């Protein structure tokens, strides 16, 4: 239940500062979004702090200065809610789906999720303890694909690195990751769409922190992320938006 009224993203804001804790996978999107926000509110300084979601959550709980917290999974905001530091309920602002990452040219000829179970195919996924791994497990289970990865990486980027370096033939990663990779222009990675991808995915929640120095500005930033402008940036990055 919220007590403060979330501000309108277009309303005038007093000069101030917003510290945004955001999941590392949002680095590119939020940098663009923050620039957009600042263009709208030139007096407000947006300071972005990126890191692993769970690490950031722990920092918020331990009293780190944070006004907005955008996480890469719903469970990772739980400690903040449990510590009663959320200003209102977290709101899902983006959703990510899985894709199969393969080396450019797809040498192992992976065409579907089922190909991961083929003999001799080495693939990597995230550990089930992290959101990407949980999604991958759900997806494989629901799609009834009995495939064993050679490694449970700690996050999607590590999976991507293994694919990039050719250590594995394929990896289960987020669409956004492959999109970001291809944007660099000299990508060594290609994506293979998964027909069943809608069966599992990952929600990105955002919330303003109760302790926020400037609740109005924090609220405004949350609203801005959820606004059309923010959503456009996220879609561009490969997210599904609600």
């Amino acid at each position: 239940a919220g007590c403060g009224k979330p501000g309108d993203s277009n309303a005038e804001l007093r000069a101030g500062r917003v510290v945004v804790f955001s999941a590392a996978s949002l680095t590119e999107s939020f940098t663009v979004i923050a620039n957009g926000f600042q263009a709208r509110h030139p007096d407000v300084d947006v300071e972005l702090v990126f890191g692993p979601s769970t690490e950031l959550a722990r920092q918020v709980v331990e009293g780190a200065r944070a006004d907005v917290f955008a996480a890469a999974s719903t469970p990772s905001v739980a400690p903040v809610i449990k510590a009663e530091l959320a200003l209102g309920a977290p709101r899902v602002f983006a959703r990510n789906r899985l894709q199969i990452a393969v080396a450019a040219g797809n040498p192992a000829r992976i065409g579907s999720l089922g190909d991961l179970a083929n003999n001799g195919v080495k693939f990597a996924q995230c550990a089930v303890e992290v959101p990407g791994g949980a999604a991958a497990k759900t997806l494989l289970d629901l799609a009834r694909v009995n495939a064993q990865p050679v490694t449970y990486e700690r996050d999607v980027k590590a999976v991507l690195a293994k694919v990039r370096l050719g250590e594995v033939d394929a990896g289960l990663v987020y669409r956004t990751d492959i999109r970001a990779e291809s944007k660099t222009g000299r990508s060594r990675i290609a994506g293979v769409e998964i027909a069943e991808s809608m069966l599992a995915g990952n929600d990105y929640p955002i919330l303003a922190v109760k302790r926020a120095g400037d609740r109005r500005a924090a609220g405004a930033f949350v609203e801005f992320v959820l606004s059309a402008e923010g959503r456009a940036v996220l879609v561009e990055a490969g997210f599904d938006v609600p």
Partner: protein
Amino acid sequence: MSREGGRPPLPLALPAAVGFVFLVLPLGALLVRAPYRRAGTALFSDESLQALRLSVVTASVTTVLALVLGVPLAWMLARSDFRGRSIVRAVVLVPLVLPPVVGGVALLLALGRRGVVGGPLFRAFGWSIPFTSAAVVIAQLFVAMPFLIVTVEGALRGLDGRYDDAAATLGASRWFTFHQVTLPMIAPGITAGAALCWARALGEFGATITFAGNYPGTTQTMPIKVYLALETDPDAAIALSLMLLLVSVVILALLREKWLRV
């Protein structure tokens, strides 16, 4: 050596006490706040024990390899005067400073399937090192061996070189002198270096997960398990850490007692 105690001087005892309190406080807090109730289940799962065993075994293999390769390297640095010695020394320091994850990337670039050395190996024999327990050892060795080398080099430099002279006048080759005279004299330094190396290998996480990956039973070491547990169940992570701690401190203490008695 020969004189017994007396009270240690304040300028030493005081900072020592401060240092000790500083180190013991977090440990104490960890013990006080440990989730003992819920610990049992996390601890005695098969997977935890598997990870613990893998950690202890790989760290021990790593330490043995580090002794075999690192002590001679330390000797070369301390006692031999060859061209490029400062380059070798710099190279030895590199893994100390390199963030472990980057170390893992470097290992992939060198020994991975498409690596500088690993590539030809893979094409010729079909060998692929990553994702095996051997890769765990390699990652740990890369990160932990420098600790041994630097410590042993320090011990060698502190040694009175005249015993080497005495050995040579008795017709002993440098190798004979090394293992008969030098090694016993730097035993405390080697013990210290091996302890550091073992501990560092046991706690290694970044390079291991990057180079060797994470698969229960073959490459999932305890620190990796702890890291992942932190994502979902911090209590379990603390319980696992305490278990790792207990086992390793007991092992180190036992070895130490045994070695220092010699």
